[in-house]
């Protein structure tokens, strides 16, 4: 038997992260984390990415996690470092993204004394983490790391914080290091395999439905269930809609795809949900942006709800059949049973339903003619920008986004055929997410096209990361849909507040984004005319090894439609400024 390695707490942490398979850490140093930073310096297995703001570190780790499915890892110091990370932790929490955040803490004997840069990170982060650990005994670092990754990545994923007082990582205290093979948490046991009885009931409903809709969300992506979903619908041939978080889990170019549903969902998706007789909810949680008024939601539908999280089922909309388990496993079980009953199913019975949907689609579908208007009398339309980007990148890029109108245009007009390619802050709606998230994606996929569709408001919330992009040579493409306003806020003010634009415009105070990009060492391109749009975008995407910031001035008056009318059903939508259903 060889003798065990003796290491300091900081070195154990690095060894544990390496043994866990971590390749990248996004972080920012400071006093309480300096022992750890020294351990980082003395190893060469894990790369540390120095961001420019801790919020950027969390979003970058988040983008890495969403695009790869692997947990993102963040390292910050105590006090302000920890609090700066909170927005990104909350963003990951609300979208169920696996992340492990390591925060330095003041030395154990100083805890509770209002020491320099002391903050109760466990307390501050508690409502926005799946779980958290404070290290009280350095011996436990390997076990805690193992558990943290297990909790973050299993069941319904989420962020886990490990708070480490400085003395736990001191260089002089050595411990025998061994990384546990398995996390063993007796009080944690998320469901994996579904209950046979529920599978049988679900299949019976599926076989008998006349107007079924598959409604799949981020949980289906988290569970890597794209093949199962596709196979399920080869059998059922039902219309499919995705939530904002679920885009890509079913190919957007498939003829059964209805588009996104909800607040800014397509007319046909919302109409189909409202008029369905069976809703097959897969890793989706009936968020208020989906249901509109729950009491008016889809009055004639039975609901089968597949989810790994008990508390997500029958929270907003009562499920008739609940199937708990990893949705990948649950769908496999459904498919297996369905395949024995194919003789009981006739796809043709859905034909009237498909005809109805086709009608809806042709009466109020999204407008794909917009980008054909290249005359310079008309302002550039934001939708046209996204359509050009979609065409130039052949729909294959990783697209991150921020929050606002540009985000909704991106979701509506960039059609994702694969999961994990659409990266946006769905539930938190965190402005500032897009650029750092794109960095995380680019680190994971250096050879893929990664672009960020943003707005002039959002991009300024984490603009400092342009500096990180230069340091690590990240040739991201930033498409700034510049409407010179907090457009989504302004749209609500137009619709609900008599057009009173309270604090949603900037009075000519925007920076020159071209010069700004250049001063960060990147390329900037400004576009103001329809006739220049396509060629400017093509030029940007042709510069493979440079970060290009394309600042596109668009029509500031444009609104996002369709838009659900608040407190009504999914059938009640604004279709344009002067037309509703």
């Amino acid at each position: 038997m060889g003798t065990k390695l003796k290491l300091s707490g900081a070195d154990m942490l690095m060894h544990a992260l390496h043994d866990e398979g971590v390749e990248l850490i996004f972080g920012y140093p400071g006093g309480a984390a300096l022992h750890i930073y020294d351990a980082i310096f003395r190893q060469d297995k894990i790369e540390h990415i120095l961001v420019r703001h801790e919020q950027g570190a969390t979003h970058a780790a988040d983008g890495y996690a969403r695009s790869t499915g692997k947990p993102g890892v963040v390292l910050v110091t105590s006090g302000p470092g920890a609090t700066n990370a909170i927005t990104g932790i909350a963003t990951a929490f609300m979208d169920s993204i696996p992340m492990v955040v390591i925060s330095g803490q003041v030395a154990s004997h100083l805890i509770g004394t209002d020491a320099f840069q002391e903050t109760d990170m466990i307390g501050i982060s508690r409502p926005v983490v799946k779980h958290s650990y404070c290290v009280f005994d350095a011996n436990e670092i390997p076990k805690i790391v193992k558990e943290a990754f297990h909790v973050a990545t299993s069941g319904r994923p989420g962020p886990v914080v490990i708070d480490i007082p400085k003395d736990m990582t001191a260089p002089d205290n050595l411990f025998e290091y061994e990384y546990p093979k398995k996390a063993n948490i007796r009080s944690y046991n998320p469901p994996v395999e579904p209950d046979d009885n529920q599978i049988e009931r679900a299949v019976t409903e599926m076989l008998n439905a006349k107007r079924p809709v598959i409604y799949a969300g981020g949980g289906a992506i988290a569970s890597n269930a794209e093949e199962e979903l596709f196979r399920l619908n080869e059998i059922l041939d039902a219309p499919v809609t995705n939530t904002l978080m679920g885009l890509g889990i079913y190919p957007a170019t498939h003829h059964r795809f209805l588009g996104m549903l909800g607040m800014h969902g397509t007319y046909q998706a919302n109409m189909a949900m409202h008029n369905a007789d069976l809703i097959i909810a897969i890793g989706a949680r009936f968020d208020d942006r989906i249901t509109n008024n729950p009491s008016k939601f889809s009055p004639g539908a039975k609901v089968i709800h597949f989810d790994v999280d008990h508390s997500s089922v029958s929270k907003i909309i009562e499920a008739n059949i609940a199937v708990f388990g990893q949705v990948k496993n649950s769908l496999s079980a459904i498919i297996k049973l369905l395949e024995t009953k194919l003789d009981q199913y006739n796809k043709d019975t859905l034909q009237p339903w498909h005809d109805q949907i086709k009608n809806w689609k042709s009466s109020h579908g999204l407008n794909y003619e917009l980008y054909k208007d290249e005359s310079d009398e008309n302002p550039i339309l934001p939708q046209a920008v996204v359509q050009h980007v979609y065409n130039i990148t052949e729909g294959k890029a990783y697209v991150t986004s921020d929050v606002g109108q540009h985000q909704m245009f991106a979701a509506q007009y960039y059609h994702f055929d694969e999961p994990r390619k659409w990266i946006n802050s769905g539930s938190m709606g965190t402005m500032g997410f897009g650029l750092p998230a794109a960095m995380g994606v680019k680190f994971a996929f250096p050879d893929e096209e990664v672009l960020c569709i943003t707005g002039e408001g959002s991009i300024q919330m984490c603009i400092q990361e342009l500096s990180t992009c230069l340091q690590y040579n990240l040739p991201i493409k930033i498409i700034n849909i510049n409407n010179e306003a907090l457009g989504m806020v302004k749209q609500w003010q137009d619709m609900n507040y008599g057009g009173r634009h309270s604090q949603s415009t900037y009075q000519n105070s925007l920076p020159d984004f071209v010069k700004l990009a250049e001063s960060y060492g990147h390329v900037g391109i400004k576009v103001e005319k329809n006739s220049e749009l396509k060629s400017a975008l093509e030029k940007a995407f042709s510069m493979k090894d440079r970060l290009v910031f394309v600042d596109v001035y668009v029509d500031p008056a444009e609104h996002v439609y369709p838009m659900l009318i608040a407190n009504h059903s999914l059938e009640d939508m604004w279709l344009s400024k002067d037309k509703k259903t």
Partner: protein
Amino acid sequence: MIKRKLTLIMENKPGALVRVVGLFHQRGYNIESLHVDPVDDFTPYKFIEEQLETKFKENEISRLTIQTLVSDSLMRQILRQLNKLIDVIAVSNEETTYLKGVLLDENLL
């Protein structure tokens, strides 16, 4: 709204109680009263030990009782949310017990 009693068996770990209390606040559930004790007699919880294939040791778990005013429809949601907390081993109301992934049809705590 009816007054209901919830019983929890949870790991006696730092911060575990705060997570329970915090959850009530965060989700807008109210707490009428709350009581915590360390558990030293494990005989009533043999079924948990069997189900989780574990052996409780001294000072390892505590028992928490909470009185809360809730509607019926919220009750199940509260149980499920509590059950989701990593440090909570089991939670019950008058009719049901959630023992991690398992739902049992009576109050066993």
